């Protein structure tokens, strides 16, 4: 039985030319099988028989190869995943291109559905195995070596982690939390990578605004391109372009929420870039304009208009939930956990975040509708009875006035000073 960690095991191997025994690490490229994994392609949307057939052939190759990989013993599995680039690209292509259920992709072919389900499960199991440094008492890798292997070999990277959360996070949250938690714990460089990724996420917000001909609050930081084409307004752009904006928004918001829901510990890193303020500004700018455009544009099919509305409504919900995840992780949870000790910095954070948000009236009312601000403030008051009431009542009044300005009636469950 294997007693040493896999990264320290040496195996006796006869030299092919001399026959002399030499010792090689158990994790060595020569132990990789030349399997040649093919890349994943999503199912064809139009159901053309030749394309369906090609998809099935490709998908069945992958399904068989993944089954083979899952059946490999611990040492051979790790040799394959570390040294087989075709396997890594295959997994990456699946994560990147597999349809998300919210895409509302429908392919009625039962064989397509069956193999998609097979791949869905197998890909998850491969990533689960790759995120486990201790598979059993006998089969394990030292945590430090594991951290290096997964990071240096790009077995996991931030886009893949985001994909894993959005593809598998709804149904397999418990396992996925352990997986992602273990990856970040064993390799803190992922926090640095996340930190480097946040500006690109913010850039995606700006890019969506640009496509809509809108500008974010902090947009002036970026120089305007001299030869930038004149923007088409949301009312005039081709319907496909308009649809793409909604698809992009929907995917962006769902993916962000999925990641934060699975790994709320990312909140502090994201907030280094004032993420939630940027998110709220983005919401404030984009939501009313898109709502208005969906209502006013002419659509050949009402079903498309309804679908786009649903997509926007879903995106709004996910942006608010993502915001709440961060508030909860950074302020509310520590207050609840710490009792009365050392909670002042968290209370201060909460008050500062909301004070800075008070001019984002549309965001504020929508947030308050889902997560009543007054309830959180009441929590703060219970945890810290000598809380400065001037500041809290200022926030509550601002929320109420945002409701008044919106012309909508505040739901009865959103408590406040109304």
């Amino acid at each position, binding site marked *: 039985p294997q007693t040493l960690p896999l990264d320290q095991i040496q195996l006796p191997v006869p030299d092919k030319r001399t026959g002399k025994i030499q010792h090689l690490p158990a994790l060595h490229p020569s132990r990789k099988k030349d399997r040649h994994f093919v890349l994943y392609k999503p199912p064809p949307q139009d159901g053309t028989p030749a394309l369906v057939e090609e998809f099935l052939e490709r998908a069945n190759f992958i399904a068989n190869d993944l089954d083979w990989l899952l059946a490999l013993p611990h040492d051979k599995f790790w040799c394959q995943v570390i040294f087989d680039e075709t396997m*890594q690209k295959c997994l990456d292509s699946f994560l990147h291109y597999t349809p998300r259920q*919210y895409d509302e992709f429908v392919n009625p072919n039962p064989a397509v559905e069956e193999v998609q*389900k097979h791949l869905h499960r197998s890909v998850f199991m491969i990533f689960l195995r790759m995120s486990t440094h201790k598979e059993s008492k006998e089969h394990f890798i030292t945590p430090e070596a594991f951290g290096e292997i997964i990071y240096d070999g790009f077995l996991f990277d931030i886009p893949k982690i985001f994909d894993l959360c959005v593809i598998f996070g*709804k149904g397999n949250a418990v396992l996925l939390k352990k997986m992602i938690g273990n990856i970040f714990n064993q390799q803190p460089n992922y926090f640095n990578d996340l930190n480097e990724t946040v500006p690109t996420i913010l850039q995606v917000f700006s890019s969506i605004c640009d496509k809509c001909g809108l500008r974010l609050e902090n947009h002036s930081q970026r120089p305007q391109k001299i030869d930038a084409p004149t923007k088409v307004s949301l009312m005039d752009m081709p319907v496909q372009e308009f649809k793409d904006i909604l698809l992009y928004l929907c995917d962006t918001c769902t993916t962000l929420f999925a990641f934060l829901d699975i790994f709320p510990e990312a909140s502090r890193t994201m907030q280094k870039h004032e993420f939630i303020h940027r998110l709220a500004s983005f919401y404030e700018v984009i939501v009313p304009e898109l709502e208005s455009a969906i209502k006013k544009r002419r659509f050949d099919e009402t079903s498309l208009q309804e679908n786009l509305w649903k997509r926007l409504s879903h995106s709004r919900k996910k942006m608010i939930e993502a915001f709440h995840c961060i508030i909860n992780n950074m302020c509310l949870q520590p207050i609840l956990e710490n009792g009365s000790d050392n909670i002042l910095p968290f209370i201060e954070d909460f008050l500062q975040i909301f004070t800075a948000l008070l001019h984002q009236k549309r965001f504020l009312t929508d947030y308050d509708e889902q997560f009543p601000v007054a309830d959180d403030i009441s929590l703060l008051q219970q945890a810290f009875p000598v809380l400065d009431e001037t500041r809290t009542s200022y926030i509550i009044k601002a929320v109420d006035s945002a409701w008044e300005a919106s012309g909508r009636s505040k739901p009865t469950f959103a408590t406040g000073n109304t």
Partner: protein
Amino acid sequence: MELPRLTGALRSFSNVTRQDEYTVDSSDLMTKRSKLKEYYCQTELTWNDLTHFVENVAQNEHQVVSENLRTLLKAARQLVGIEHEQETVESAAVFLFKTFHDKDHVGHEETKAVKQMFGPFPSSAATTACNAVYRIASNFSEEELQKLLCANEPAGQNSHVHFGKTIKFSFDSFVLEPSEELPLNWQTDNQKDFSLDY
């Protein structure tokens, strides 16, 4: 058409990935097919093993079995193409034996397996192979056949427990969760833009 995705943008514009450039075309399917053929050529069960194994049948069945082996080889040659070496044809015949040993007709799964191995193929060749294998296999018990097929599998592959087999997995995924329907009075909202109050 590729759907716009947040992680697509992160792959393209952040510097935290390997920045793999890959395009999916059908050339990798060709490569995969030839790899599979190579793999089966290297599997331990050989044509010799098979011919040796069938010698165990009763004396009066010898001729029938030999004829069926010849039919199987002929069908294998049709599937791999006449330009291939005898060795490749024999390993194709072994593959067909493994595929059809417990089947009395060419079903969906078998068609899939044969196609994966040889690409598009004449169905008559598969049917001929299947019938020949069926007639050969009917001379042996299930146990004898399993012994032949499993004795030569590479060690540690089929015997190992499939990782994750006992892990509960859910197919539940994120779906659209709209919090409100398209307002029925949106046309009224629209009309607010027009005013007769000059």
